[in-house]
């Protein structure tokens, strides 16, 4: 069983023959541990990639492939290592512990902050793979003169595969549910470092380099432990930065911060952190915004859109071939350019902002409406909610007075006017404010799952608008002949209530909106 004694200066080592057998078993036990750790790192990387990037088949497949290949590179590199092999092995254990152990927290945190997350992911997976690939060949070389080759191969691989089995079972059943990815990753990092420490203490021949490596291992263990204790913080930090989906675009323009996110279900646009639409249900909002107005003035040729730089309202307008021209006034060129150029977004708005009928004007809507002299058959007003005093001015009697001057005879205007359920007073304040400026109003609402119950005010200066119920364009998914009647019905919990008018010199709406949402938040 023993071909040759260990080349040790220790006389006590040679004295006890039984010790040698114990050491070999200990080395084999460490094979078991490092095998478990190796597979765990691989599983963590695959799970994390699937979680953050979606498409688990692709992620697992590419991660496993990369990892195995990197292990191959590691095995090949083991050939280049000479000198004290035990020393190399201990060093590598500490490194695997650090790199593998911190892989999950690193990937979580960096996800929000790096340009190319995939580059970081595969670099980390490759590094771990290379280091893990070095372990087994190195260990076999350490044992090669102590154990017969056939026994060596048999034992090492037996422990290796048992470790793998254990890892693959405890990872989904015990570790992820109980510890989570970050703590699992750090725990196995600690195990790797533990193996290094244990080898250093058990093998007298490590004495010349023991102190240095023990210090290194101690520091690595402390780092990993600190991470383990602070894992909650790391996770909350990482998740606070994440919109639960992946951010595929973010940009700060002089006017606002534009963020686009995507997950398996939908694409979302946030302006200053407020959801503007979800691709899963935006058709409900935009069909409800545009078609009642168009049906109320079916011969409309000239249309004005205020706000709505995403081009989604314009997409609905372009279903009416009789429209000759659409003026779209949106403050932010960053926004309209994005929805003219980004292919993901132009496929959503059907390239509406590139239509020859559409003229995009990047200007402040209030000033533009005040100085404009043209008249419009339909005006679509799609401003952000009145959450501050400067937006509140765009919902004032003074603004609606200006708007009234822009309407052609028989012209209609529709205003997005917040939620009549969540912000009931705000909604009716908009209705009353428009009425005070001589508008005959037709309030209505639609259910948009990502927003909730949402309100609109259709209005005209001559008569209460009467949208036709036949002849809605083909291909609509939400508005049909019957829906218009349904949308006009306000159940008691959303019914009209008295409010003040919103004026520049009282800004009643901003107060209502703030209070309504504070109440809704509770």
């Amino acid at each position: 069983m023993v071909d040759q004694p260990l080349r040790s200066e220790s006389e006590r080592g040679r004295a006890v023959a039984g010790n040698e057998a114990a050491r070999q078993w200990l080395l084999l036990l460490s094979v078991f541990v490092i095998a478990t750790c190796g597979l765990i790192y691989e599983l963590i990387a695959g799970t994390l990639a699937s979680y953050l990037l979606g498409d688990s088949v692709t992620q697992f497949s590419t991660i496993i492939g990369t990892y195995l290949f990197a292990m191959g590179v590691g095995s090949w590199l083991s050939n280049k290592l000479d000198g004290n092999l035990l020393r190399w092995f201990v060093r590598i254990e500490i490194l695997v512990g650090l790199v593998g152990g911190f892989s999950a927290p690193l990937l979580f945190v960096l996800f929000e902050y790096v340009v190319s997350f995939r580059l970081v992911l595969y670099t980390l997976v490759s590094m771990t793979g290379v280091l893990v690939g070095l372990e087994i060949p190195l260990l076999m070389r350490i044992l090669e003169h102590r154990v017969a080759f056939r026994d060596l191969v048999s034992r090492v691989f037996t422990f290796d595969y048992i470790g793998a089995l254990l890892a693959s079972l405890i990872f989904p059943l015990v570790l992820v549910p109980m510890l989570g990815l970050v703590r699992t990753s750090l725990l196995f990092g600690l195990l790797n470092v533990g193996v290094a420490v244990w080898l250093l203490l058990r093998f007298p021949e490590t004495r010349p380099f023991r102190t240095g490596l023990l210090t290194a291992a101690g520091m690595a263990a402390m780092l990993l432990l600190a991470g383990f204790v602070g894992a909650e913080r790391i996770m909350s930090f990482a998740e606070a930065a994440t919109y639960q989906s992946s951010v595929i675009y973010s940009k700060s323009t002089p006017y606002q911060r534009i963020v686009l996110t995507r997950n398996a279900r939908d694409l979302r646009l946030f302006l200053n952190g407020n959801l503007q639409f979800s691709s899963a249900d935006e058709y409900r909002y935009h069909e409800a915004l545009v078609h009642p107005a168009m049906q109320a003035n079916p011969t409309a040729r000239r249309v004005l859109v205020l706000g709505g730089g995403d081009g989604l309202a314009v997409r609905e307008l372009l279903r009416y071939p009789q429209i000759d021209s659409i003026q779209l006034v949106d403050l932010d060129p960053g926004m309209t350019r994005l929805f003219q150029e980004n292919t993901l977004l132009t496929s959503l708005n059907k390239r509406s902002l590139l239509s020859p009928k559409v003229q995009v004007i990047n200007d402040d809507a209030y000033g533009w409406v005040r100085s404009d002299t043209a008249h419009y058959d339909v005006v679509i007003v799609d401003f952000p909610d009145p959450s501050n005093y400067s937006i509140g001015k765009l919902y004032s009697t003074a603004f609606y007075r200006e708007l009234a001057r822009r309407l052609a005879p028989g012209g209609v205007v529709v205003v997005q006017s917040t939620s009549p359920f969540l912000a009931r007073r705000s909604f009716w304040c908009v209705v009353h404010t428009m009425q005070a400026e001589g508008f005959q109003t037709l309030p209505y609402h639609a259910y948009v799952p990502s927003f909730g119950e949402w309100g609109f005010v259709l209005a005209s200066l001559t008569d209460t608008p009467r949208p036709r119920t036949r002849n809605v364009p083909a291909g609509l998914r939400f508005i049909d002949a019957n829906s218009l009647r349904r949308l006009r019905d306000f159940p008691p919990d959303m019914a009209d209530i008295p409010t003040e008018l919103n004026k520049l010199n009282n800004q009643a709406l901003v107060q209502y909106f703030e209070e309504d949402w504070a109440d809704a938040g509770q």
Partner: protein
Amino acid sequence: MNRRRFIQTTALGLTAFTVPPLVPGCTTAGGSDSGTLSTGQNWSNVPGNLLGPNAKAGHWLRQTLAPATAVEPDIYDVVIVGGGISGLSARRWLWQKGVRNTLMLELETQPGGNSGSGKNDVSAFPWGAHYLPVPDARHAELIDFLRETGTITGCTANGTPIYNDYHLCHDPEERLFLDGRWQDGLIPNEGIPDADHQQITRFLALIETLKKAKGADGRDAFAIPLDRSSTDPAYRLLDTITMTEWLDQQGFTSTYLRWYVAYSCKDDYGTTPNQTSAWAGLHYFASRKGVGVDANGATLTSAVLTWPEGNGFLMNQLRQQADSPIRSQTIAYAIDLADPSAVRVSVNNVPTGKQTVIRARKVLLAVPQFVANRLLTTADPTRTATGFHYAPWVVVNLTVNALPQTAGKTLCWDNVLYGTESVGYVSANHQHLTDSPQRVLTIYRPLTGNDPAEVRRRAYHTTREEWLHQTMTELETAHPGLSAHIQQADVWVWGHGMISPTPGFIWGEARQKARQPVQARVYFAHSDLSGISIFEEAFSQGIRAVNAMLTGGGIAT
């Protein structure tokens, strides 16, 4: 509620008359130790200028001046000296009365006086007066003027003026920074003891009574124009005591209330309650009886009218309502009444340095009295300016690319910091219809002190960097980090910012004597003749002087 007022009439920039050896504008910026704030801000690196009334003209006036000899051929019906609000108001009134052969002389490149304004890429902004309270509907001339400016758009069936939404101050109007937090309104409210609340309530109730009070003669106790106030001694005797004495008499001891009253005196007159006539101090609160409705018919209470450029808007409207010539950069320096056929005004053209004589049938001096007396040294050596004191002011316009906020009420039009030297700042962008992170903040700072002449002298020796250091030390408490966001910082020093209504001045003799015409040929119009420096008074003084002139005869209308 009670609003800031500021000087609306011109001081014509002739501060140099009383300011040897250094005149404003001569000081050079930079090089001061206090130009560095503790935050490490070096103010001389921040773009901007130290501005003020015309310095070149000031220098020129300090030499010995002989009357000019070159006589210009034209003879005007009226020459108006001074292009502030009272002068522009007189020019408009003459034009409306059909007297159109007039000439206005203005020292600066543009008329406007303390209603001057500036403009940059971010906003227009005031250099002085910046608002007008909705006026008493009985002030017919002013109501007519506001109709011409489009500020009043019509009348209700019962004759109440309807005000333009764009000219009425937008919501939110005012806030106070107290104990680390912005609260709504300017009267200390949140977190102050009950005893103080009770005194404030009692004070406000008393003001309500005074607003409605009428004297034995049936006139309002406190009116605008103030010459329409009651002659009843029950009220006029208030002019003989100081505001501090009045507060003591009434048992108003609350620190918060007394701060608020002191703030109001400083804000309106540039004086402390110790220096202010109690009649004037109360007039600030009790004279605002504006009546009007907004475009939707809602009654306006204590509303004010304001514009990004402040009263520069009203000034330009006044100016545009007459077509008679204005000769700018021209200093009148002597008036000669020896020629019975025409008053001779010696003038100096600042750019060319040439002196000429301009002849007129009548001359209207729309300048402060210390300037008027200088012009009349030979013609009427008996005139004095005893009792006329003027408060110096500093106005800072900061262009910022962000405004770091502290807790509480959001940015308002008028923003006041409790317990500071300044009387706060207005956001010039407030009346804009679109928000922008870039703003212009106009900070007002009256320079109070026991000896205004000494304070003025010190002010002329203060560098822009020192003014900015003082201003930002205060502002940083409410806007930490603001210094780093300043893109431009201009400072304007008004040596004779506004007339001070010191005790005895409003209802004493000096005011009445100073407005008496000289030989029915030289007339006077300036807000210092009212004793308080507000737009309404300057506007009325111009009209009063013209009416007196036309009654005096000699001009065909």
